[in-house]
């Protein structure tokens, strides 16, 4: 009986130093491969029966360079963030935020939104957990806005594909929108617009169980990082391929002067149009950033593109449907209105400055 346990049980855990060495070796191999991406992609395209400088050739080169690049960047960063996030949990974040005043609470909440592991499928339990522990409504919203919008996938892809200046801009203004929108929602005092059953919890303060804190070994944290990579790939690879495919089409076929006309800085209406278009589109950062890269390359205005990207990621229909269980339609409308106004301001601001 015991032999079977040994065969099917988990392999004997590696010591911590072996994990550290393994991670260092992995990063070195990663770097060596990453530096060879351009030659390899050009080589692949040269094998294909297309002219490198034709529309199709341009689109293919874009595709074969971007897909492995995005995949590699994602692997590294999602792993690193998986390890970092193992130090955070929604329970700890809630403890930090409960009873915090608005203002400073909104800022902390948006920051923690980046670091706390969060999946939109547990948005409702998390919302209830926060509100029942005395986290103000506006502070909770700051978290719910920042968590999906400003994430490591978005930032890394922006750094890798578009440039670090745009990435920092996105980080700064993404956080600003989360903080200000949460603050505004808090000031409106809309607690009465929660669904009835949520209000009962709110006033009654249900006891929230917390499993005993288990401190993790470093090898367990590394394993969580690997788990995060596996999950990202099982979930988002299709979006990446689709996004890069779209980007490749834009890159190869859309004429530049048309793009400047539609999405250039002179077309003021393009910002609201980008926000409205972004709401029903549901993809994540991994899918939208290759499109962003291609749009910018074709002369679309930065503010318009940022507005589009923020709207796609932060205002998603599926998330609203999930939140419908705790929020009334009126509150969802306010949420969308406030966040959309923030995105609009950022879009106009950037088109004015740049």
């Amino acid at each position, binding site marked *: 009986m015991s032999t079977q*346990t040994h065969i*099917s*049980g*988990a392999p004997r855990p590696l010591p911590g130093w072996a994990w550290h060495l393994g991670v260092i070796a992995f990063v070195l191999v990663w770097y060596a491969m990453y530096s060879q991406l351009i030659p390899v992609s050009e080589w692949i395209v040269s094998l294909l029966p297309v002219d490198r400088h034709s529309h199709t050739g341009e689109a293919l080169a874009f595709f074969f360079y971007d897909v492995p690049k995005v995949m590699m960047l994602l692997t590294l960063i999602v792993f690193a963030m998986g390890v970092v996030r193992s130090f955070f*949990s*929604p*329970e700890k974040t*809630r403890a930090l935020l409960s009873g915090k005043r608005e203002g400073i609470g909104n800022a902390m909440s948006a920051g923690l939104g980046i670091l706390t*592991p969060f*999946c939109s*499928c*547990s948005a*409702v*339990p*998390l*919302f*209830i*957990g926060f509100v029942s522990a005395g986290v103000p409504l506006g502070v909770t919203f700051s978290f719910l806005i920042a968590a999906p919008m400003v994430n490591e996938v978005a930032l890394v892809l922006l750094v890798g594909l578009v440039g670090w200046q745009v990435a920092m801009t996105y980080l700064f203004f993404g956080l600003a929108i989360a903080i200000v929108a949460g603050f505004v929602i808090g000031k409106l005092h809309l607690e009465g617009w929660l669904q009835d*059953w949520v209000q009962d*919890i709110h006033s009654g303060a*249900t*006891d*929230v*169980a*917390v*499993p005993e804190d*288990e401190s993790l070994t470093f090898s*367990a944290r590394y394993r*969580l990082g690997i*788990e995060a990579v596996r*999950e990202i790939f*099982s979930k988002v690879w299709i979006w990446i391929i689709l996004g890069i495919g779209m980007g490749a089409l834009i890159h190869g076929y859309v004429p530049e002067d048309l793009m400047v006309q539609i999405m250039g800085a002179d077309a003021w209406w393009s910002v609201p149009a980008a926000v409205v278009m972004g709401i029903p589109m549901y993809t994540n950062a991994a899918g939208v950033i290759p499109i962003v890269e291609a749009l910018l390359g074709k002369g679309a205005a930065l503010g318009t593109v940022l507005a589009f990207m923020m709207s796609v990621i932060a205002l998603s229909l599926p998330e609203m449907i*999930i939140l419908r*269980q705790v929020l009334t339609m009126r509150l969802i409308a306010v949420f969308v209105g406030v966040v959309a106004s923030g995105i609009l301001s950022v879009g106009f601001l950037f088109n004015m400055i740049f």
Partner: protein
Amino acid sequence: MKNIKVYGPGCKRCETTETMVRDAAVKLGIEVEVEKVSNPRAIAMAGVMSTPGISVDGKLVHAGGLPDAAKLEGWLTT
């Protein structure tokens, strides 16, 4: 007989967790009753904030992410 509840709104990890619990129980030869709680409201009322969560005989032992196989066996046997 132990009563196990797996809390999760139906994402993939929650289903995997349920399978893990059942498999572990079979492997250890323990009789369990596994209940899947997928109503977000019920999950929230149980005090689970990050899913999937696991409770054994009413006591919450795990929340957030896939459980560690060795720990899972520990919860089932104690």
